[in-house]
């Protein structure tokens, strides 16, 4: 695997939108060609070369290309968005849409990310070694297809509306979340190591949520049905099994109603 290293030269005055910074776009390109790729800065279309020092070499394909981004990326959007293969490491906090619509490969952010990251993620591995903002792994506005595959791991806390309309894949949050986790979920798995605020699993059709900490207010649509011993993300523990959201529709399989499950660690 070849590595291209981008080092930010100057912090953008507005926000810099870099949808093209992915292994998919960089693959097979020379450093000059990469430097010539444009982003958006408001209505300006600056080249990557204007903002980054670019070194290293890209691979022939996305899968053979690794991108390392250094410097203060807090005002950069869309890093790693839509990547399908290869690897990206961002050694900074970054802004919105990081890893959004990601389909494959591995994306690591060594810092915090803002909202709408991992939006509608379909595959690959996305690791956030910091805190995440709102709408992590959620669906784009209006879409009923949120995160559908892959693994999204947050070391710290995440904001509100995490995993809205999730249909598949796995999300692990090391810290706490704010309101509305897994709203409208229709598949997939969320593991929350810390505490949740309120409205967990509202309007949930299908899927599993594991909570190691506490929930501020449990929704009336959840009902405990027993206790189970489970191994969740490497931890063996006893959980109380709640089914729900009982206010929502649920599919039937072989005549049996399939409920969502909310497992609360005892």
């Amino acid at each position: 695997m070849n590595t291209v290293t981008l080092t930010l030269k100057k912090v953008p005055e507005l926000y810099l939108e870099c949808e093209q910074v992915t292994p998919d776009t960089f693959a097979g390109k020379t450093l000059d060609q990469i430097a010539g790729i444009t982003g958006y800065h408001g209505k300006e279309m600056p080249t990557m070369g204007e903002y980054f020092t670019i070194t290293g070499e890209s691979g022939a394909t996305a899968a053979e290309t690794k991108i390392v981004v250094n410097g203060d990326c807090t005002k950069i959007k869309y890093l790693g968005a839509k990547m399908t293969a290869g690897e990206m490491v961002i050694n900074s906090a970054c802004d919105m849409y990081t890893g959004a619509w990601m389909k494959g490969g591995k994306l690591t952010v060594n810092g915090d990310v803002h909202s709408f990251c991992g939006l509608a993620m379909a595959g690959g591995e996305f690791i956030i070694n910091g805190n995440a903002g709102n709408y992590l792994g959620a669906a784009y506005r209006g879409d009923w297809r949120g995160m559908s595959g892959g693994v999204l791991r947050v070391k710290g806390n995440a904001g509100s509306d995490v995993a809205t309309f999730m249909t598949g894949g796995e999300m692990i949050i090391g810290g706490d979340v704010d309101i509305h986790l897994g709203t409208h979920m229709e598949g997939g798995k969320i593991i929350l190591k810390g505490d949740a605020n309120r409205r967990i699993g509202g309007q949930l059709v299908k899927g599993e949520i594991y909570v190691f900490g506490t929930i501020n207010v449990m929704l009336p649509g959840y009902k405990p049905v027993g206790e189970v011993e489970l191994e969740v993300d490497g931890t063996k523990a006893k959980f109380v099994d709640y089914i729900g959201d009982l206010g929502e529709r649920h599919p039937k399989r072989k005549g049996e109603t399939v409920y969502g499950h909310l497992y609360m660690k005892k």
Partner: protein
Amino acid sequence: MPKEVTDVICPFCGTLCDDIVITVSDDNKTILGVKNACAIGAEKFNHQREPGRVTRPRMRQADGTFKEVSYDEAIDWTAKMLVKSRKTLMYGWASTSCQAMSIGHEIAEKTGAIVDNCATVCHGSSLIAIEDVGVPSCTLGEVKNRADRVIFWGCNPAHAHPRHMSRYSIFPRGFFTVKGHKGRKIYCVDCRYTDTAKCADEFIQVQQGFDYELLNAFRTAARGEALPDTVGGVPREKIYEIVEDLKQARFGVIFFGMGLTHSMGRNHNIDIAINLTRDMNDYTKFAIMAMRGHWNVTGSGQVLGWQYGFPYAVDLSRRDQARHQTGETTSVDLLNRSEVEACFYIATDPGAHFPVDAMISSSRKPTVTIDPHINCTTEISDLHIPVALVGVEVGGCAYRMDNVPIETRKVVEPPEGVLTDEELLTKISKRVDELIAGGGT
């Protein structure tokens, strides 16, 4: 001799009453009387000729005072600001005509701006919810003619839409509702015992911020599932009782307002209310409607809808693409994060209605405010351009809260020399073209 203008449309709230009668002076310059309007509507018409109304643009000086400038100077200054700015917020539009909006959008597309309307701090939550789950709704006449269960949830029409209850929702007698109020059961759900609650047959006091939980309980009860003893302060028995009564409705309707859109969870409160409405359609007929605030905020959403496919917060900053993401391209977020470098306000007053931190951010950027009157925003702007009062001094299309379009009427002449929004925007657009052709950007 003074004359009466009938069937006038009130340009205040989303109820868009169209039965106002205005008495106008012989010279078509002064409003002498207003009939049928509510207190707010009447005030709006009467305020048209306030003494000392500004009739020429004003530019803020270094010492903080304002100096009168010509329309041409103001237009030139505005166009230059728009062409220079790499990303501009063009916010407002809720109190102007659809025709004016159209011209504004063209300017935004040419100069790379974000067009956002007052829904952003009002029913934006409702629009997100509708984007997520749709909405079963109806026109207000359907409510008048058919509804026998009416729920006001987190809205207070007695204060915000004063004639709503008499024209459409509580009192009128319609085709299938010959008994008027007597034939309807009115519920009000709120955290306060509002004046609307006082008109209701039943008031359900919900703990502030617990609407989502209560709606979740309603849906759970509707499916016959068990509930905790109380939800949001409402006893379980009450919830079951209400849900059973709603299922007995022939035609039910939920009206909701900012009690839902502004409280914790925002869009999800509406989203789940819509889902309750949808559930009720398995038993009977049910509709739900947002009590839209500004008289033509709905129109702005419509025009943006047919031109770009998004109802508000439309980001045209790239000039070759339209994008929309509430939380990113919404005015308050843009200002909070200083994502824009110039502000253009039209037909609105964010200075009065945005949280202060957003306005502090705004006040540090070049700002133009277009409004008939002096307001909070004009006084922190670099340039205030006065215009004619739409719906009073110039007509134009507006959309009612149920999306019914109504052409507003001109009843009196604007003050001499004052441009309309359409005229002003057309001139700005032309000047922008000249600057771009001259190599602006």
